[in-house]
C-alpha cells in the first residue's frame, strides 16, 4: 500500500541558506510519525512545504501515491492536510464553533447564514470522540492555552483532515495535558489518520510515536522504528555527535545573603485584569530559584515587576537591601538586575536595528559606549563583534539587522548582553526555548557559572526538565499566585505538573 505522505528529494533554498536539501520523508496511514531535529534542521520548512505555504524548489509531494502540487495553503487543506501551529491561528473574540468553521469553504462555513447549533453539536461530538472536549460556545480568549490547542485540533478534524501535523504541541502544556494529548493522537492514528509530530524533545518522541525521522542540517539522517531507539541514540543522530546528558549537579551548599526580596506583590496584566495576587519570594545570592507554571499564569508579569517594566499595584521589590522604585526599568538596570525576556524578538531586541545597536541596548548610556551625548560607534561595533565571537552567534555581523538571526542565535545575543552586564540578579524567562541541544548545554553551563559566582538567578520556564536540572528551589505559579515552594531535591515531575494545573497532590488534573 502506498504511504499516506511521501516527500521525495525536497529542496528549498532561501537567500543564503538551503533549508531543505534533498529531504526524503514518508509516513504511513495509521501511524504517529515524529519529525525530530534541532532548531534550524529544516523541520518547519518541511512542514510549511507540506501545508502549501512554501513551494519547493525541487522534489515531489505524493499523497496516497498520487503526485500533488500545492499552489497555496488552500490546496493543501483541500487535500486533507491539517496543521496545528506552535502559535495558534485563532480569533480570540470568536466562539470555539465560529473558529472551527472559519475559512472552511465547504458545508456550513460557506453558507451566508450559519447555523450555530448544528456546528456546535458537531464540535461537541468530535470533542467527545477524541477526548478533547471544549465547550463549543466558549469564547477563545477565555480558554487556556491547552484548550486553545484542542480547538486547533478540532478545526483540523472538522475539516476531515486525514493527515495532521503538529508543530511542537507540548510547549504550552503541563505534563498531564501532554499525556492526554498523546492519547488523542493515538486514537486518531488508530482510526487510520496520519499524525506527524514535530518535536525536539526526545522523551515525547519515545512516548507517542511509532516511527521517527531525524533531520539534521536540512537533510534526512535516518528513519527508524521508535522502539529500536534510545534517547541517547536519537540525541546523537540529531546533533551529529555524542551528547552528555544534562543532569542535575548539586552545587556547594554555601548560599549568600538575600539579594532579592519580592513581598506581597500584586499587579495587573495587559488586559487590566489581575495577573499577580500577593506574590512573595526571596532569592539568595548564588541560588537558582525555578519558577514553574503553565504559560500565562503570571510569570511574565512577575519578571516584569522585578525588572521594573511593570508597576505593581501593591507590594515591594527589594534588591541588595534597597527598595526598587516601582515601574522604573532604568533603576532596575542600575541596581544590576539583568533580564532575558520571554519575548526575545520584540522585547529582548529591537528587531530592525543592527546587532551592534542591540548589543548595547542597555549599556549605551555607559561611558564605555558614549562620550557625553555622542555614541562611540567604533567601540559599539567592536563590542558586538566580540559578543558574536564569544557566544558563537552563527550568521551574525554587527551591521546586520537583528531580525535576520534565527531564534537560537538571537537568544545568544540577548543572553550574552545580559550576562556581560555584571548582574547581581538575573531574571531569565524560557532561556532555552528554540535552542538546539548544544546551545542549551552552553546556556545551562552559563547559568550555573553565574550562580556559582554569586548571582541570584530567577529562572522562569515552562520546561520542567530544565527547572529540575538547574534549580535549588522551585516555586510553582498558578493563576497569579505561588501555590507551592519545593526543595528541588525532593520535587518530582508529576508533583509539579499537578500543582501547575491548579490541583493538589491527590486531586484530579484540571481539564
Amino acid at each position, binding site marked *: 500500500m502506498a504511504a499516506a505522505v511521501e516527500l521525495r528529494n525536497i529542496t528549498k533554498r*532561501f*537567500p543564503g541558506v538551503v533549508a531543505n536539501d534533498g529531504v526524503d520523508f514518508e509516513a504511513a496511514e495509521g501511524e504517529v510519525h515524529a519529525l525530530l531535529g534541532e532548531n534550524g534542521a529544516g523541520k518547519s520548512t518541511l512542514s510549511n512545504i507540506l501545508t502549501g505555504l512554501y513551494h519547493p524548489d525541487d522534489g515531489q509531494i505524493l*499523497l*496516497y501515491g498520487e503526485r*500533488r*502540487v*500545492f*499552489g*497555496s495553503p488552500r*490546496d493543501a487543506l*483541500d*487535500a*486533507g492536510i491539517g496543521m496545528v501551529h506552535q502559535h495558534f491561528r485563532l480569533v480570540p473574540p470568536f466562539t470555539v464553533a465560529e473558529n472551527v468553521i472559519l475559512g472552511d469553504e465547504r458545508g456550513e462555513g460557506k453558507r451566508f447564514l450559519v447555523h450555530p447549533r448544528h456546528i456546535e453539536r458537531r464540535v461537541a461530538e468530535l470533542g467527545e470522540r477524541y477526548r478533547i472536549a471544549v465547550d463549543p460556545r466558549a469564547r477563545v480568549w477565555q480558554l487556556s492555552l491547552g484548550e486553545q490547542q484542542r480547538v486547533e485540533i478540532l478545526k483540523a478534524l472538522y475539516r476531515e483532515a*486525514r493527515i495532521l501535523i503538529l508543530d511542537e504541541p507540548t510547549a504550552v502544556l503541563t505534563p498531564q495535558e501532554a499525556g492526554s494529548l498523546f492519547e488523542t493522537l493515538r486514537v486518531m492514528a488508530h482510526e487510520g489518520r496520519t499524525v506527524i509530530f514535530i518535536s525536539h524533545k526526545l522523551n515525547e518522541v519515545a512516548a507517542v510515536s511509532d516511527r521517527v525521522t531525524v533531520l539534521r542540517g536540512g537533510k534526512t539522517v535516518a528513519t527508524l522504528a521508535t522502539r529500536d531507539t534510545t534517547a541517547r541514540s536519537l540525541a546523537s543522530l540529531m546533533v551529529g555527535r555524542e551528547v552528555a546528558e544534562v543532569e542535575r549537579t548539586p552545587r556547594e551548599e554555601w548560599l549568600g545573603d538575600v539579594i532579592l526580596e519580592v513581598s506581597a506583590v500584586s499587579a495587573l496584566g495587559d488586559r487590566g485584569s489581575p495577573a499577580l495576587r500577593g506574590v512573595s519570594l526571596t532569592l539568595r545570592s548564588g541560588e537558582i530559584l525555578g519558577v514553574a507554571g503553565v504559560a500565562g499564569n503570571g510569570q511574565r508579569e512577575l519578571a516584569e515587576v522585578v*525588572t*521594573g*517594566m511593570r508597576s505593581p499595584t501593591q507590594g515591594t521589590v527589594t534588591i541588595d537591601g534597597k527598595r526598587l522604585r516601582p515601574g*522604573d*526599568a*532604568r*533603576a*532596575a*538596570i542600575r541596581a544590576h538586575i539583568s*533580564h532575558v*525576556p520571554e*519575548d526575545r524578538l*520584540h*522585547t*529582548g*531586541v*529591537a*528587531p*530592525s*536595528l543592527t546587532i551592534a*545597536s542591540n548589543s548595547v*541596548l*542597555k549599556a*549605551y*548610556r555607559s561611558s564605555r559606549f*558614549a562620550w557625553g*551625548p*555622542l*555614541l562611540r*560607534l567604533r567601540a559599539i561595533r567592536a563590542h558586538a563583534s566580540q559578543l558574536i565571537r564569544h557566544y558563537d552567534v552563527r550568521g551574525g555581523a554587527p551591521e546586520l539587522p537583528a531580525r535576520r538571526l534565527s531564534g537560537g542565535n538571537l537568544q545568544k545575543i540577548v543572553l550574552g548582553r545580559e550576562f556581560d552586564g555584571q548582574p547581581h540578579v538575573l531574571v531569565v524567562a524560557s532561556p532555552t526555548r528554540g535552542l538546539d541541544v548544544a546551545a542549551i548545554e552552553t546556556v545551562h553551563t552559563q547559568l550555573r557559572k553565574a550562580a556559582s559566582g554569586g548571582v541570584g538567578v530567577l529562572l522562569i520556564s515552562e520546561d520542567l526538565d530544565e527547572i529540575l536540572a538547574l534549580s535549588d528551589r522551585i516555586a510553582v505559579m498558578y493563576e497569579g499566585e505561588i501555590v507551592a515552594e519545593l526543595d528541588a531535591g525532593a520535587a518530582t515531575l508529576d508533583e509539579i505538573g499537578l500543582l501547575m494545573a491548579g490541583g493538589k497532590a491527590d486531586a484530579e488534573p484540571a481539564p
Partner: protein
Amino acid sequence: MIRIERRLEQPRWLDVAVPLGSILVAFAVMTVVLLATGHAPGHTFWRLLVTGFGSMFALNSTLVSATPLIFTGLCAAVAFRMQLFNIGGEGQLYMGAILGAAAGIALGNASSFLSVTAMIGAGIVGGAAFALIPGFLRAYLNTNEIITSLMLNYVAALVIDYLIFDSLSYWRDTSTPSAKVFPQGKILPDAATWPVLHVGGLELPFGLVLGVAVAVFIWVLYSRTRFGFEVHVIGDSPRAANYAGMRTRRKILAVMALSGAIAGLGGASQDGDFRHTLDPRGLTAAGYGYAGIVIAALARYNPFSVCLIAFLLGGLQNAGYALQGADFPSGLVGVLQGLILFCVLGGELLLRYRFTFDRRSRRVEAAA
C-alpha cells in the same frame, strides 16, 4: 495569475532602479495625456526641464520654492522616524510664521542681527509649542497624534485668518484707509528681512542655508547620539525601549517639540525671506506642510534625501507656474505633477514587494 509577495531581501540596485523606472513610467503616461490633449510631448518635457532647472533664474526660483519644503519635510521625517506621525507640520508652520512676524514687527528697525535672531527663536518656539499639544496628548493620554495634529492644522489656519481678516490684531496693517477695507498684514521692517547669500550667480535664501544646517544637525543627532539611538529603538519596538529603561514619554515630547520647531522655523523663514508680512492667503494656499509628508516618505526619512527631493519638487512646482498659459491650462499642469508623484510613490511598493507571474496551479481534487 499575479501574486504580490513581500521581498525577503531588498537588493541594493533596486534603490536606484525603482525610482528611475517610476519616473520613466510617469513620462510614458504623461506622453499619452499630452498627445490626447493636443500638446507636443517632447517640447513640453523640454520646457519642464528648462523652466525648472535650466537657467540661473530657474534655479534661483527653484531654491525659493524648495526652502519651505525642506523644513516641512524634515519636520515629518524627524517624527516619523520614531513612528510618531506628526501630520501637523502645516499648522506648526503657521504658528512659527505668526510668532516670527510678531517678533519682527516688535523689534522695529533697531538691529538686523537682533531681529533675525529673534524671529528664528520665535518661529522655533511657536512651532514647538503648537506641536507639544498633540505631543502631551499622545504621551500622557495615548491619544492618536495623527488625528489631533491634523485637526490642529485647521485651528491654526483659522487663527491665522482671524488675525488678518477678522480682527484688528497686532499683525494687521491698519495704517491707511484702504488697508482697512482690504485687510493685509503689516509689512515687516527692513531689519527683519533675512539676508541672501550670493554664491556665483546663485542666490541662497538664508532660510535655505538654515534648512540644510538643520538637516546636518538631524543627521548627526539621529545617527551619532544617545538621543537618536533611543528614537530608533522606540520607533522600532516600544517594548524593547521599555525593557531597556528608556523614558518613552519624554522622548515623545522631545521629538514632537523638535519636529514642530523645524516647521515653525520654516514659518519664520517665510516671513523673513520671502513674504515680509504675515500672509494667510499665501501660506494656506501653498500647503507646504502636506507636501512635507510626501517628501519625508519619498526620502525614507533621510534628512539629506529630504533636501534633495525638496529641491526636485520645488523645481517641478516652478516649472508648473512657467508652463501654464493660454494654450496650457493650469489643470493640466496639476495632472502632470500628480502623475510624477503618483508613479514615484507607487513605485515604492516594488521595493518592499514583488510581483510574481505564474500559471494558475493545477487544482487539487479533494482527497477522496
